[in-house]
């Protein structure tokens, strides 16, 4: 057992953790967070993507003990119960989700991407957006609505800046 201090969505706890336990499992069981989904547990599908110190990472390929002292954020931290984040709203209006299982992973991959594009005042092409989500698998939407949602989330904010 290894003493590990984790901050998940702002809640800090120190736990005795077996070194082999995956970060995804610890977040789900110890912090009772349901927005981290395991799709493959071998690092291909991206469902389990969380932010570790602000950077998107696969929580199924990360041991909890590697994250001692780190700040972890899950989809719950984006827009709360009402899913108010601009990207969440765009996923809703553009039908960027169906069963919802892969959705938290896409949102956590894309939130910093959208933020960066908006900060740089860039509108990416569809090809660039598709490249940005190449590490996430969605089986329901055919990615079409997701690409449209990213486009909308960025263009809405860019227009907001101009206004």
């Amino acid at each position, binding site marked *: 057992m290894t003493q590990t201090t984790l901050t998940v969505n702002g809640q800090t706890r120190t736990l005795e953790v*077996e070194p082999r336990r995956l970060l995804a499992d610890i977040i789900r069981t110890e912090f009772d967070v349901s927005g981290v989904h395991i799709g493959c547990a071998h690092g291909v599908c991206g469902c389990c993507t969380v932010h570790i110190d602000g950077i998107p990472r696969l929580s199924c390929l990360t041991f909890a003990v590697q994250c001692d002292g780190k700040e972890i954020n899950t989809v719950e931290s984006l827009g709360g119960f009402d899913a108010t984040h601009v990207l969440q709203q765009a996923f809703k*209006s553009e039908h960027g989700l169906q069963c919802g*299982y892969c959705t938290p992973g896409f949102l956590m991959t894309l939130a910093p991407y959208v933020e960066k594009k908006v900060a740089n005042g860039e509108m990416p092409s569809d090809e660039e957006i598709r*490249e940005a989500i190449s590490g996430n698998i969605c089986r*329901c939407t055919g990615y079409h609505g997701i690409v449209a949602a990213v486009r909308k989330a960025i263009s809405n904010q860019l227009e907001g800046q101009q206004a």
Partner: protein
Amino acid sequence: MKAENPRQIGARVQRFEDVRLLSGVARYIDDIRLPNCLHLTFARSQMAHGRILDVDTSALEDIGYPTWVFTGKDIGDLSMKAHQDVPEMQYSEQPLLARDVVRFVGEPVAAVLAEDPYLSEDAAEMVFIDCDPLPVVGTMDQARDPSIPPIHDGWKSNVFIERQMKGGDLEAARANAAYVVRRTFRNQRQTGVPMECRGVVAQYSPGDRMLTVWSSTQMPHLVRTYISEELDLPESRIRVIAPEVGGGFGVKGQVFGEEVLVAWLAMKTQRPVKWIEDRRENLIASIHARDHAHTLEAYVSKEGRLLGLWADISVDVGAYSTFPFTAAGDPGMAAKVMPGPYDFQAYEATFRALASNKCPLGTYRGVARPSAVFSQERLMDEIAKEIGMDPIEFRLKNIIREFPYKNVLGFTYDPGSYAESLEKIREILADDIAAARETRHSKEKRIGVGLACFIEQTAHGTPDFTRRRVPIETGYIAARVEMQPDGTVVIGLGLQSHGQGLETTMAQVAADALGIDPKDVFVRHGDTLTSPYSVGTWGSRGGPLGGGAVHLASLKIADKLKAIAAHQLQSNKDQISLGGGKAYITDDPSRYIPIRTLARQALRNVENLPEGMIPGLEAEYSLDGPRDGTYSNAVHAAVVEIDVPTGKLKLKRFVVVEDCGTIINPLVVDGQVRGGVVQGIGSALFEHMIYDEQCQPLTTSFADYLMPLAPELPNIEVHHIETPTPLNPIGAKGLGEGGAIGPAPAIANAVSDALGVEVNETPLTLNAIWRLSAHIRGEAS
């Protein structure tokens, strides 16, 4: 003046279920956590075919923490049985834990439980399964080889079933043919891959003698019925709940042995039991799909009219028959739908289900139709080429134009837009067809255009299943609609929603009938305690049958609301309209009563009701499918660009023209079509469940089993034609599966067009295309 009420059916309503899915609070099967729970891990067979000598669990005695272990010897005769009730069928029975023989890699042999999932996994690895290998049946040829012994005791051969379907005079068609075109086509084995694996949690409560089973399933009531029959428990004491379900696509549209076993283990151990499938198990041991081989022979007149079709259909259905659609499902469906959208009246098909030492075959989006349409539409292109006709012209010459149309097997097609869809796609593709022609002699880059024209029987109901004689038995969908005293509505829906948006679309349907806002309609589903009995969500039946049932049940309530309003407005029921939350006099909308006031009167201030009226606003309706279902139609077109030196294929464009009758919500319909298309593109280009000669599965992770990713795909263009069907109360036909049916034939036809070769097999991987283009590079293929 008349009031204008915006119709909800047809409106692009954003989905009500999205907020909980986006925020992360939705609860899927692995989020069901019960105190004192035992976690289950299976020890599964590593051998494809073998006689079990011993299942040694002695290592668990010294493991240092509590474990519970069960093998085939501990579970009596509990098993999965799925028989088609016809004399030709050879029956298979799969014990919930293998008893004497294992028949595929991944078959459950022992159930190991511990108080933590990491510990149950450790313990399961210490179970030693001692097996003597038996000869393996791994190919269709081996399955038909009489010198290889059958894989099931008492069987005469490795053929589950072989039957025929026929209609008209095929001999005459053959005799009158100016052209006979014969081809053989092959589609690979696949699996459906919902992003959430399966899982089951069960808890038995001795106080009220209630067994509660949570399962990631598309068919909770059917799971309940099977558990009841197998465990001999009253159905009234079993509650099955499908929580949030992370995709199904047909994979979760069968009853699985794990569902029965976890329920049994919860009763046996008197503790909650939880099993969460991992991805390897999901890939090798849930349900596989496709794996078809077809030989077709078409008889065509001098003028280019199809006179008749002969078909020989084989499907490798794996080791066991699955419940409720059986081993006969895929081959029977392929034979039934092969005549397609074309007008000819002579047909004969022989179809068979072959057993092998592979994972059992079950339903996956499209069920046999992706393979049938692949063969049918590849053949149409091959015939057109052979007789020197444009492929679209050839199709238009043979397409059905008069409705209702009775096909060669006696199925009646309701009105559709077959010819119109073909004309429309020809218009859309005109520039691409011209561009493709320009590259015809290039040794570098070739462009090809291909299309697939098809119909899909949807809204199947009881008459269809009675004909098939499979254990699904029935096909109606029930809805119970209940208006509350405040005027809001709860629908108990017999369907289960796993991404289709039924909480929104069914609310739209009810809102139109009741004249209220769809936001005031709450759709409950996936729980046998709150929903009326129905067989679940699959087979492109939700929109037409669920929507129809909600519509008709809501009309009953609307009728009562009108009666109450008429009484109070001193008018007649038939002069009352509902809309905008009000019941009003149709010719004088200024005279109205809010619907919420009427609801309160119907349920609380009942002294205001007309004399003799029974209080309450509740209605149920069960809607069954029409005799032959309703037929959706579509044309899919692919434009591909092939780099000849490397064989690399780029999908430049993918266009759909589809007709599913009345569209309830265009946002949802487009999403279903595009999602289906991308799965079909997966079938065409990437996905392949590969076994070696010993029937060891080789594609056991997402690094090996490749699915379409975003960068490989174009935006999918979708165009609609709406031909409402007279066979459904809201005019809707089914559309959930159609997207997955057309891509493989459309893409194969495009590749054939680009390279000038026959393309008779999928998947069209980089290697496959490189081989198909060898002649252009001047190499021997």
